[in-house]
């Protein structure tokens, strides 16, 4: 077994052996399903089928904050508990440690997001009816696939930021306001939209079909797959930053 596989296996043991993993991932599922159910119930049957994407994505988009908290706390707790010293004594290659941690966080979030997304989709279909967001339509597949990729990449992005800042509290107090911008509607203000529309969470709204293409206020200058490409760039930049900061600094 290669050193990387051993290190990633160890990161998985770390994740599954603490209570907070189960708690936060359950909360993620609870929020996504709960909000999906509430919003779906406010929908009238017989409306446009595409509208059913809103209850699905609204729940997931809000619950992503829980997922971000999970990703950030997973990294931050290494520093707050001091286990980072044992981790780096056991895996002295900083790059290997970082890659292992990001892989474990990414795969765990990917699995959780997939399960929850499928569950939310099923729930919304039960509430609104079989006509809602049918899987025979490409835009349904696109939104579900894009949402899943978005949640996974956003978690890796924020976990990398946490590795640079070395603290759960500092990282969340910077990231949560930024990721709340979308729900507060700041992304729709004309003055800042040209810049803010490229922020990771705004990209997510496009990917999840929560914006209206071509709309002067809610439209964005790019489409869903360009949005994913932008998120990939954000994530890659954060990964490079996290790796550089791990490589240089004392434990």
């Amino acid at each position, binding site marked *: *077994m290669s*050193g990387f596989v*051993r*290190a990633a*296996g*160890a*990161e998985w*043991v*770390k994740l599954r*052996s*603490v*209570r*907070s993993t189960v708690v936060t991932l359950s909360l993620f599922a609870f929020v996504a399903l709960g909000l999906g159910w509430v919003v779906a119930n406010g929908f009238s049957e017989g409306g446009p089928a595409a509208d059913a994407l809103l209850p699905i994505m609204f729940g997931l988009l809000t619950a992503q904050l829980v997922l971000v908290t999970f990703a950030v706390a997973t990294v931050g*707790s290494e520093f707050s*508990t*001091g*286990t980072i*010293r*044992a*981790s*780096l*004594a*056991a*895996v*002295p*290659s900083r790059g290997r440690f970082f890659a292992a941690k990001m892989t474990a966080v990414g795969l765990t979030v990917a699995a959780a997001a997939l399960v929850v997304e499928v569950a939310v989709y099923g729930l919304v279909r039960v509430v609104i009816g079989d006509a809602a967001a049918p899987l025979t339509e490409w835009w349904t597949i696109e939104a579900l696939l894009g949402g899943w990729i978005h949640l996974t990449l956003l978690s890796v992005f924020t976990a990398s930021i946490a590795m640079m800042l070395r603290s759960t509290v500092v990282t969340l107090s910077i990231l949560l306001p930024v990721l709340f911008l979308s729900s507060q509607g700041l992304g729709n203000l004309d003055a800042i939209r040209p810049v803010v529309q490229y922020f990771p969470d705004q990209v997510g709204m496009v990917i999840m079909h929560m914006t209206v293409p071509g709309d002067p206020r809610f439209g964005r200058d790019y489409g869903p797959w360009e949005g994913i490409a932008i998120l990939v760039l954000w994530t890659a930049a954060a990964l490079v930053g996290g790796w550089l900061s791990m490589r240089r600094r*004392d*434990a």
Partner: protein
Amino acid sequence: MVIEVSNLTKRYRGGTAVDDLTFTVEPGRVTGFLGPNGAGKSTTIRLILGLDRPTGGSATVNGRPYRSLERPLTSVGALMDAGDLHPTRSVREHLRWLARTNGIGERRIGEVLEATGMAGVARKHAKTLSLGMKQRLGVAAALLGDPGVLILDEPVNGLDPEGVVWIRNLMKGLAAEGRTVLVSSHLMSEMALTAEHLVVIGRGRLLADTSTKDFIAAHAPADGSGASLEEAFMRLTGASVEFRSGGSL
């Protein structure tokens, strides 16, 4: 296996923690690592383990920098701060992730739990452990890879009298098996019983690198009365103590 520290220097913004330090830790004996508070013992240990980068000089284990070891736990076991644990992770799971990193089998976890008297609390969360139990867990973690080199930073802290005797005999036993044992402590009477050899530092600089017997003899009072390691240590380090208590409350 030997630990070689050569011209090791570590400067922080606040000052120099380790200052051109050179010494070798030989196998087959317990080497005591002594020095007043803030002398640079823990910093030296972090440098040996590759956790901090030296400003100058180098530290190697068997001729290789720690960071170049592919499965470091199988050659070097270390106890730094016993409190470095995730509060809601169990004792066994802590050892399990450590074992995974270095491809150490599940059976070995049971062995070190038995050897450190921690088998009975293997399912307990770290936050419920007493300081002494955390120290034992730290020793268990250090022994996990059956390493030829052991580096223990103040392992005696928090141990009950039975635990003190246990760790003394453990360290002596490991050295007798031909392993290299470096242990830091402020408990001079305990070091006099455990360490055959001493490396003493003050303000980051080497003050002595000699056998315990010679050290005591060299710094004994001139009248030859009641020479102890404690007295010898205070005589030698008197000039390099940074944090001296003084005055009255």
